[in-house]
């Protein structure tokens, strides 16, 4: 297929809008040809997953765009970096590693990106609206934007998300078009759940991620979520065990009012029945230890804790009042943190071991003081990646069990 370019696309390629625009458009054109897109479309925003330092090539790329005088053409948010710029000294890193990692975050700001440094850009004022075309990186943000909001993005990543931002354009293919958003595989939940707890949503996410492959999953029988954070947890888990960029939950998500709407009137290609036992099995695999194991830390907020989640956590902390000095790390966006500080909501909370972490995440960089014991989390994503990334042993549990365990000093879960 030949790629059709607009006059403005061509002027970027021809260098009329600066050297950085030439580079970004050239790469975007090559990418579009590789995916077989017929044209480019306008985007209203971008989210860049480029601030974690993975090597010199990534930094060289951004520096070249800065040198070329480039600016992003649409409102552009940034994903987490390797540093907590709000709390200096939190991240332990050698000076030789630190310099390029810090520079990478700063170079993105010089391109005009917003200093959000959050994996939950949907919690910021840059949250897109239903039907908007966007180019987002970061797997949990992508699945949230598509599924929960009904904005449209493909799974963008490394380099190409920034090329979309620098040109304000994205290839017209995949999930940008309505026809490609139809459900393909049906998951029928066969569970008698009166109170939908957080781990149910994580468990469903783990299962659809594993079984969907490249087919868009539709979930029927999902209990009505308490809030969007439960759907955030579901999507993050699905994008962890699989490559899910969009899911539909019948009667819950905006493009799935009915089963028929979710499948665009077609029949599912496959139907999978999901029982309570399947969910328990998936969740059990997230934990490397039994109840009773000694606890060294708690990590919450992967993806970044929302203001609503803080409002659930803080009363729990006051009530349980953990006093054993076990750190309770909570990853959150800097905008959320600022709001909490303005509200005075965090005053005195450090006595319970609370350590807010902004701009980064406890599993991508060295923050945790102790890696020898067990770390408890309510995040399916953290539980999946942390053992490989930072070498900890994980116990997965509901948030209230994490806090209770911090008070007791060892892992306790459920009614025990």
């Amino acid at each position: 297929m030949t790629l059709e370019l607009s006059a403005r696309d061509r002027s970027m390629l021809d260098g009329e809008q600066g050297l950085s625009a030439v580079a970004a458009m050239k790469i975007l054109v090559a990418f579009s040809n590789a995916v077989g897109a017929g044209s480019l479309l306008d985007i209203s925003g971008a989210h860049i997953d480029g601030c974690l330092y993975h090597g010199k090539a990534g930094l060289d790329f951004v520096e070249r765009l800065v040198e070329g005088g480039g600016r992003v053409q649409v409102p552009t948010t940034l994903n987490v970096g390797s540093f907590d710029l709000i709390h200096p000294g939190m991240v332990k890193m050698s000076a030789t590693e630190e310099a390029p990692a810090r520079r990478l975050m700063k170079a993105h700001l010089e391109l005009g990106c917003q200093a959000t440094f959050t994996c939950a850009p949907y919690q910021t004022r840059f949250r897109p609206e239903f039907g908007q075309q966007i180019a987002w990186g970061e797997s949990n943000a992508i699945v949230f934007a598509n599924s929960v909001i009904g904005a449209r993005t493909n799974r963008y990543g490394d380099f190409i998300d920034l090329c979309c931002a620098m040109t304000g354009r994205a290839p017209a293919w995949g999930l940008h078009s309505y026809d490609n958003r139809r459900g393909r595989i049906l998951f029928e939940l066969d569970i008698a759940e009166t109170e939908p707890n957080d781990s149910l949503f994580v468990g469903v996410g783990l299962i659809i991620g594993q079984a969907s492959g490249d087919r868009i999953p539709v979930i029927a029988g999902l209990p009505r979520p308490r809030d969007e954070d439960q759907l955030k947890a579901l999507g993050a888990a699905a994008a962890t065990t699989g490559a899910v960029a969009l899911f539909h939950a019948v009667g819950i998500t905006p493009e799935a009012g009915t089963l028929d709407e979710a499948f665009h009137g077609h029949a599912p290609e496959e139907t999978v029945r999901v029982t309570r036992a399947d969910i328990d099995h998936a969740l059990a695999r997230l934990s490397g230890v039994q109840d009773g194991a000694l606890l060294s830390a708690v990590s919450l907020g992967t993806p970044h804790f929302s203001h609503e989640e803080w409002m659930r956590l803080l009363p729990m902390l006051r009530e349980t009042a953990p006093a054993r000095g076990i750190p309770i790390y909570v990853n959150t966006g800097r905008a959320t943190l600022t709001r909490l500080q303005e509200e005075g909501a965090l005053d005195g909370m450090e006595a319970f071991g609370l350590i807010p972490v902004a701009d980064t995440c406890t599993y991508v960089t060295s923050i945790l003081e102790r890696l020898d014991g067990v770390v408890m989390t309510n995040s399916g994503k953290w539980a999946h990646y942390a053992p490989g990334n930072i070498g900890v042993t994980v116990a997965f549990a509901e948030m209230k069990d994490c806090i209770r365990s911090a008070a007791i000093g060892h892992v306790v879960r459920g009614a025990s």
Partner: protein
Amino acid sequence: MIRPVEVVERSGTFQLVGTAEGQTLVFSQPLSFWGGIDAETGDIVDHSHPGLGQNIAGKILVMPSGRGSSSSSSVLAEAIRRGTAPACILLERPDPILAVGAIVAEFLYAISMPLVVCDIAGVVSGERIAVGVGGDGAAIVRLQPAISPAAPRRQ
């Protein structure tokens, strides 16, 4: 009887144009660069991949497709920068993630690692392959089978 070395020519499509020559390393299972390749050495480090322990540097890497995370773009670009990348990658299906890594590396370091989509059926590890550019911009892939005098094929 001495038989002239048989050279087979196939035509393909460039995802990134260039010329290359080298020995093939063929996998029927796609390899993810992120988590699968050590960019410092070019070693395959994916424990679930049959190529574990082999090295891709300077080889003509042949596989059905790319796989996995978009972070593979960065790993490929970094490997090209360090000189630990393949000389060329032949795929059966186009892969946007590998294409981006190769394009960015060429843009930054002026090092070309051609990426070709073509029929890979029958290509085996150890053959010599030369990739060139045809008159119409198509990729010309010349395969020269490894000489194995122990098992001469009948005419």
